[in-house]
C-alpha cells in the first residue's frame, strides 16, 4: 500500500492528511494521484505564503463561493471548510471549541464553519498548524445560513480584514431532476431572479476586487477558466461512472474524496485538469487490473454528508470487518453532475448558476437516491450534525431523505455527531451502530 508523501502535512482540499483517531495505519492512500495532490498542496501553500509576504492579497472564502473570480484575477484563495478540516484532523477542534465556549459562545452553535474562527481567536501561531493561516485581506461568504454573517464578522475583527457578504436568495423551486438539465439549461433550471441577484453580487465583488487590488478582471480569461473547468469536471463524471459500475469498488472513499477535492479547489487551472485526468486514468487502470479498495467486497454503502474530518479512517474498519465498502459520497458525485456549465456567451451568469443552488443540489434527496442506485449501494449512512441544520439532508432535513431512500429499498442509518468537533464523537458507540446496521439491514439485502 502506498504511503502518502505527506503524513502529518497539508492538503488544501477535502481531505486532510492526518487522521483524527487512533487509526492512522488505515488512512494511507492507495492512489498516486492522491499522493501527487498532497505534494502539490504543500508546494502551493508554501508558494502562496511567499507571495503574501510580498504584499499580495489573500482571500479566505467559504467553499460554495465563486473562487473562479479569484483565479481569473490571480488572487490566492483558501476555503474555510478546508482549514476547518485541517484543524479537525490535527485534533485541535476540542481545544479551539473549548476556548470559544469559555468566551461565551454556546456549545450548540455551528462548528464546521466556525472552527477557523475559533483558531483565529486563539491568536497562538505556535498551536495552529503551520503557524496558522496567513492574514487574509478579504473574507467571502454567501449568507446561506443564520451563522455566516456572525462568523465572518467576528473573523474580520480577528484578522482585521474586510468581509464581503454575498446574499443568498432562497430557492422556490424544488429543482426536480436538476442533474439532467443543469449543464445545458441552467438558466431554465434556476429561477431567473436568483440568478439576477447573484450576477449583480458578482459584478459588485469584481469591482471591489479591482479597486482594492489594482488588478483588472478579464472577461476572456473567465471564459477560459470556465471552459477548463468543464473539461476537468468531465473527467470526474467519467471517474464517477467507472467507480459506480465497477464491482468491487476500485477506489476507497478516502482516496475518492482526497483526489476529487484537492483538484476541485484548483478547478480551472492546468494542474486541476491534469490531476482530474490523472485520477481518472489511475482509476481506469485499477479497474482494468482488477484492483479493489477491498478485495472482499460484500456490500456497498453510501456516505451522506461532509467528510468525517476528525476521523478519516472511519470507513476502512467496515471494509476490513464486513467487506462493507463506502463507494460514494457527495464529493465526487457533485463534481460529476453539478459543476459543468455550457457557458454560451455569458460566463458570469453561468458561474452564478454554479454556486447559487449548490447547497440545494448537494443534498437534493432524489439526486442522492439516484446516485445510490447508480452505485448499487445497499445502505446509506447520514452524518447528522445538530449544529448545522441547513446542509444535512438539504432544505428539508434527513428524515425526508431517509423516506426517499427507504421508498427505493435502501435502508438508512443516521449518525448524530459532528464532522469537525471530535468532542461529539464516540468511536465505540458509532462503530457499534454502523456494525449493527450493516449486520441487520445491509448484508441481508446485499446478496452473495
Amino acid at each position, binding site marked *: 500500500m502506498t504511503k502518502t508523501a505527506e503524513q502529518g502535512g497539508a492538503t488544501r482540499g477535502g481531505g486532510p492528511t492526518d487522521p483524527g483517531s487512533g487509526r492512522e495505519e488505515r488512512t494511507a492512500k492507495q492512489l498516486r494521484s492522491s499522493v501527487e495532490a498532497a505534494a502539490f498542496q504543500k508546494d502551493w501553500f508554501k508558494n502562496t505564503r511567499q507571495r503574501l509576504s510580498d504584499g499580495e492579497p489573500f482571500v479566505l472564502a467559504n467553499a460554495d463561493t465563486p473562487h473562479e473570480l479569484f483565479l481569473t484575477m490571480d488572487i490566492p484563495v483558501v476555503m474555510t471548510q478546508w482549514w476547518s478540516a485541517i484543524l479537525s484532523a490535527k485534533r485541535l477542534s476540542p481545544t479551539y471549541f473549548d476556548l470559544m465556549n469559555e*468566551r*461565551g*459562545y*454556546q*456549545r*450548540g*452553535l*455551528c462548528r464546521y464553519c466556525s472552527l477557523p474562527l475559533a483558531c483565529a481567536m486563539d491568536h497562538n501561531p505556535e498551536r495552529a498548524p503551520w503557524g496558522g493561516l496567513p492574514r487574509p485581506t478579504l473574507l467571502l461568504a454567501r*449568507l446561506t*445560513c*443564520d*451563522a455566516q*454573517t*456572525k*462568523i465572518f*464578522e*467576528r473573523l474580520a475583527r480577528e484578522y482585521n480584514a474586510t468581509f464581503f*457578504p454575498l*446574499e*443568498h*436568495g*432562497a430557492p*422556490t423551486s*424544488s429543482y426536480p431532476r436538476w442533474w439532467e438539465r443543469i449543464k445545458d439549461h441552467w438558466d431554465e433550471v434556476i429561477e431567473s*431572479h436568483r440568478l439576477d*441577484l447573484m450576477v*449583480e*453580487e458578482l459584478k*459588485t465583488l469584481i469591482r471591489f476586487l479591482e479597486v482594492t487590488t489594482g488588478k483588472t478582471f478579464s472577461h476572456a480569461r473567465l471564459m477560459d477558466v470556465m471552459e477548463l473547468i468543464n473539461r476537468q469536471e468531465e473527467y470526474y463524471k467519467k471517474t464517477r461512472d467507472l467507480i459506480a459500475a465497477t464491482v468491487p469498488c476500485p477506489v476507497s472513499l478516502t482516496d475518492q474524496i482526497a483526489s476529487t477535492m484537492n483538484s476541485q479547489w484548483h478547478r480551472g487551472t492546468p494542474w486541476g485538469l491534469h490531476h482530474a485526468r490523472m485520477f481518472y486514468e489511475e482509476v481506469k487502470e485499477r479497474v482494468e487490473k482488477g484492483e479493489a479498495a477491498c478485495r472482499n467486497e460484500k456490500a456497498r454503502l453510501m456516505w451522506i454528508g461532509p467528510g468525517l474530518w476528525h476521523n478519516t479512517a472511519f470507513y476502512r474498519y467496515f471494509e476490513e470487518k464486513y467487506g462493507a465498502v463506502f463507494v460514494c459520497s457527495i464529493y465526487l458525485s457533485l463534481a460529476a453532475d453539478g459543476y459543468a456549465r455550457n457557458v454560451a456567451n455569458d460566463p458570469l451568469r453561468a458561474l452564478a448558476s454554479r454556486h447559487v443552488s449548490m447547497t440545494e443540489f448537494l443534498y437534493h434527496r432524489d439526486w442522492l437516491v439516484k446516485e445510490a442506485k447508480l452505485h448499487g449501494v445497499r445502505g446509506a449512512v447520514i452524518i*447528522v450534525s*445538530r*449544529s448545522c*441544520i*441547513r446542509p*444535512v*439532508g438539504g*432544505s*428539508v*432535513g*434527513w*428524515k*425526508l431523505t431517509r*423516506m426517499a431512500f427507504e421508498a427505493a429499498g435502501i435502508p438508512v442509518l443516521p449518525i448524530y455527531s459532528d464532522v469537525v468537533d471530535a468532542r461529539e464523537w464516540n468511536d465505540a458507540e458509532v462503530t457499534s451502530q454502523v456494525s449493527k446496521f450493516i449486520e441487520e439491514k445491509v448484508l441481508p439485502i446485499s446478496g452473495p
Partner: protein
Amino acid sequence: MEPLETMQTYYKRRDLAARKWKAKGGKVVGYVSDDVPEEMIRAAGFFPFRISGDPWGGTEEADRYTEPFYDPSVRSILNMLLTGQYDFLDFIVISHSSDAILKLYYHLRDIQQIDSTLKLPDLHLFDILHTRFWMTGLYIRDRVRELKKKLEAWSGKEMSNEALSQAIAVGNENKNLLKKVSSLRAAEPSLLSGVESLQIIGSSMVMLKEEHNKLLRQFLIEDKRPARDGLRLFVEGSAIDNLQFYELVESCRATIVAEDHDWGNRYFDDPVDPALDPLEAIAERYHLKSPSPRMHSIGRRVAYCVERAMGAKSQGVIFFFLEWDSAPAWDYPDQKKGLEEKGIPTLCFDMQKYLLSDPEKTRIKTRVEQWLESIRRPSRK
C-alpha cells in the same frame, strides 16, 4: 370586559378573532414572523394572522418529518399545521426570516408532495434577505411586488394604493399606541408588567388592527395602574411567543420593562413612512426595520441592545435562548460585554426548551432570585 382583559383573552385564544372573521365569510392569511408585511395582507382584504407555536401542544406529527434540533417554536408551528389546528387559514405567507422558518416552508411544500391526503393552504415564500445593502433592498422591493401579485391572485382583485395607504395608516397608529403603552411600562416606577405587555403586543398580531387600536385607546384613557416594585429588567435573545419565562421572572419581584424580540417591543419600533409611495415604503420598512438577530451585524445588535436596555433604565439584562436558535446566540458574548461595560449585570439561560418543565422552572427561578439578590445587595450597603 376591560380592554386589558379583552386583549389578554385574544392573546390566550389566538384564533378567536380570525375564526369570527372566517365565520362571517372573510378569508384569513396566516403569516410566519414579523418580516411579512401584514399591511399588504390587510390591504388585499384579508385578515392577517400571525402564526405562532404552542409550547404545550407537542411536536409528535412534525417529528415524523423533522429532526429535533431546530427552533422548537417553528417545529411546533409545523405540528399545528399538520394536525389541523390552523384549519381556518386560507393562505400562508412564510418569510425567509431564519433558517428554521425557511425550512418550515420547504417542509410544508415537500410533505404535501409525499402525502397527497394532506390538505394545506396555498403557500407563498417571502424571501427577505440578510443585509442592509441597497442591492438587497432592490431584491426585497421585487419580492414585495411579487407578494402583491400573489395576494391579488388570492383575492381576485387588484390591491389599490389607497387600500395599502389605509392599512399602513392603521398599522402605524397601532405601533404608535403600542409605544404609548410601552411608556407606561418604562415609567419609573413601572406601571405595567412584562407579562401584560406581551399580551397587549401579541394580541395586536392576531386581531384586526382597527379593533386593537380601539382597545388600546380605551386602555390608555381608562386604565389607572398601580406602581410596580422590584428590579427593572430587560430581556434579550430568542423571540418569546408565550408567557412562561416572563411569569417566572416577574414572580421574583422584578419587572421586565423592555425587551429585544419581535413578540415584544421590537414589533412596533418602526412605522411605515406614510410620505413615500406605499409599496416603496413597505419595502423599505421591512428591509431596514429594527435589527433582528439574523439580519444585522453583531455590532448593530450590541448597540441596539445596550441603547434599549439603558433607555428603559434596566438594572439587569436576562438573556433567554431557545435551543437551536443560533442567530441571537452568536450576539451574546459581545452584547454581554457591551452591557457590562455600562455597568449592567447580565444573566444567561441558553439552550432552553420551548415548554419549560417544572424542575427547569424551579432552576430558573432559583438562579433569577440569586442573581437579583446579587444586584440588590450593593445598594443596601
